[in-house]
């Protein structure tokens, strides 16, 4: 679980993006949608996160990764859900990025480089943010 819904308090982890299925603007949207009440809220402020890192020199709390874009390079994670249109999801599935697949993030910038089995590929951060993940080993 990576955060709580500010409206109804439901814990939101990987399933948080499920409300986005069928949304016409999901492709360019940074909002999370609560699976219980449907309330949409921003994932987090990058400016605030950056300022916090700057002030504390270390993350205040080490949150479990929420999307593939948050996974530290060199770590393995399990794909929980992928939002986006079916064409993109099928394309990612062919590269080995499917629900339940265990993938390794090699690098985060300028693009997120992912290894799934023997296949290596690069994703734009925007696409990586649509892939909800859990820490490997049920963490």
């Amino acid at each position, binding site marked *: 679980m990576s955060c709580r819904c500010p409206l109804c308090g439901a814990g939101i982890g990987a399933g948080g993006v499920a409300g986005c299925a069928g949304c016409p603007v999901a*492709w360019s949207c940074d909002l999370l949608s609560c699976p219980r009440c449907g309330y949409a809220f921003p994932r987090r402020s990058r400016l605030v996160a950056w300022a916090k890192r700057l002030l504390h020199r270390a993350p205040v709390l080490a949150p479990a990764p929420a999307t593939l874009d948050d996974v530290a390079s060199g770590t393995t994670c399990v794909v929980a859900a992928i939002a986006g249109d*079916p*064409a*993109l*999801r*099928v*394309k*990612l*599935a*062919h*590269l*080995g990025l*499917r*629900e339940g697949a265990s993938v390794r993030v*090699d*690098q985060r*910038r*300028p*693009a997120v*480089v992912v290894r799934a*089995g*023997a*296949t*290596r*590929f*690069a*994703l*734009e951060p*925007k*696409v990586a943010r649509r892939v909800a993940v859990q820490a490997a080993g049920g963490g």
Partner: protein
Amino acid sequence: VAGPARDEVVVLVGPANVGKSALFGALTGRYATVSNYPGTTVDVSAARATIGGHALTVLDTPGTTSLVPLSDEERVTRDVVLEGRLRAAAVVADAKDLRRGVALAFQLAELGLPFAVCANMMDEAEDDGATPDLELLAFRLGVEVVPTVATRGAGIPAARAALARARTSALSLAYPPPVEAAVASLLPYMPKGQAAARGLALMALGADDLDWLWPRLSERGRAHVEAARADLARAMAEPAACAIAHARLAEAERLVREAAPPPRAPRAERWRAVEALTIHPLWGYPILAAVLAAVYWFVAALGAGVLVDLLEEGLFGGYVSPLAIRLAEAWVPWAWARDLLVGPFGIVTMALAYALALILPIVSTFFVAFAVLEDSGYLPRLAVLANRALRAIGLNGKAVLPMVLGLGCGTMATLTTRVLETRKERTIAVLLLALGVPCSAQLAVVMVLLSALPAAATFLWAAVVAASILAVGWLAARLVPGEGSDLVIELPPLRWPAPGNVLNKTLGRVEWYLAEAVPIFVAGTVILFAADRVGALAALARAGEPLVSGLLGLPPAAATAFVAGFLRRDFGAAGLFRLSEQGQLDPVQTLVATVVVTLFVPCFASFLMIGRERGWRAAFAVLGLVTAFALGTGAALRAALAAAA
């Protein structure tokens, strides 16, 4: 055994970057672009090959992961496979990563089409210690699976034999119950033909648009398909397209895990380190700069320098032109015909000298450099690094291939804009190629022109051209309707390019250049010659005078160079070069003229190619826009330079 019907075909299908084109070359002995950039084959190549004692047509298709198409390229593959005259399909799979090939094999099995599997790049799998058990795979798939190393020609006789014996597979996957129920309900309505109803029904359920199936269905069939799709959408949480693809891929993964051990020693550590460095957020860029500098040095120093000197001054200046002039004077009695052959706008002295002595060495060296980049697997990494910058102009990293290729030849680059995913991206890429990306031939002449000026002029020229590309791209990203796409690109392993492949590919492209460009050079020269004779060039120069001298402050003769620039971009630059040699251009005029000729309209060949690819309305729109923009920028630059002086 009955011989094959005359029009039966063998089709190579497989994901991008598994060596389909190399296998095509090995089977047919003919060249098709082999490269390490996902999605290089944009057209279907066809050639004859002897398979099972019969001469058959072999087709090489664009990279495809599924016969339910996600892109125009996959649509082409699907059409070829379902055309109904398939003798055999060869599924080309990457032996290191058979998953996608196996998923494609499942689809062919479901469609009831005869096929065999080639596990290509076996050498790399063996190097990784991940040699797959192909006998087990063949047993499970129910068709022949042969190991090949297409780039070295290994396993080709076996592949030929397997294709001759290709058969349908009885394998059948079980999909989630709602999908199976929907498939069963559709079976009676599927069109009868070579392809089996079960495969077509799965396609009807899993496809985004039914462009292939729709015209082949009866009224009732269409109603049933629509009803089944709607029912399925209600019955399942996941879109049917995803559910079907996932089920197929999961089964493929299971099978591959069984047949192939996990790689023991993935790849030598130092290669891994090099691969990581090429896309490193910091070190990736100096490496990129070094690679581009090396390419530029190779093309500019060797191609534009040594080889052009050798061919233009040595061969043409020393032997061919004097010989042609002597022959013409001895044998051609009419003055006009002599001029047509060896005059200032002569076929030998202008068209052939340009095409063979000036441009050929430059594009040949560029093609060598480009082939090395392609086969090494560096281009997708270039796409990753360039993504940010290209996003700003409405494109994504994938557009780096057409853009870099545009530095070689804009016509060829326009053709490869097909690898871009959306209409909007293709339109923007074509526009920018026509506007600001100078081809290698033009670049060489422009460099010579600028070398006579202080170094600041070259920087100014580069800055104006780059700013124009950025400004027009930024505007186009906002004005061209449609959507861009996000970068999702496979990173193939870095490899040492095989010299044979580099040579083969370079020769193939040089042949293409000769067949494509030389006739246009000759035709362009004849048109120039005729226009010169009837006084049209002088008239055009007079008509263009207010623009050329008023707006740009150039001598009227420069109008002739701009007219010539449309026939071939470098004709124009070369015309200006002659003016500057004759001392008719001062430094400011040279700079203004160079900028205008760089930004000026694409050459005749790329104009024709834009018309073919994006339609004639688009071609004329690009022509008008680019002309206006080039003249406007030239006028602005002149005013700015005058103000600064």
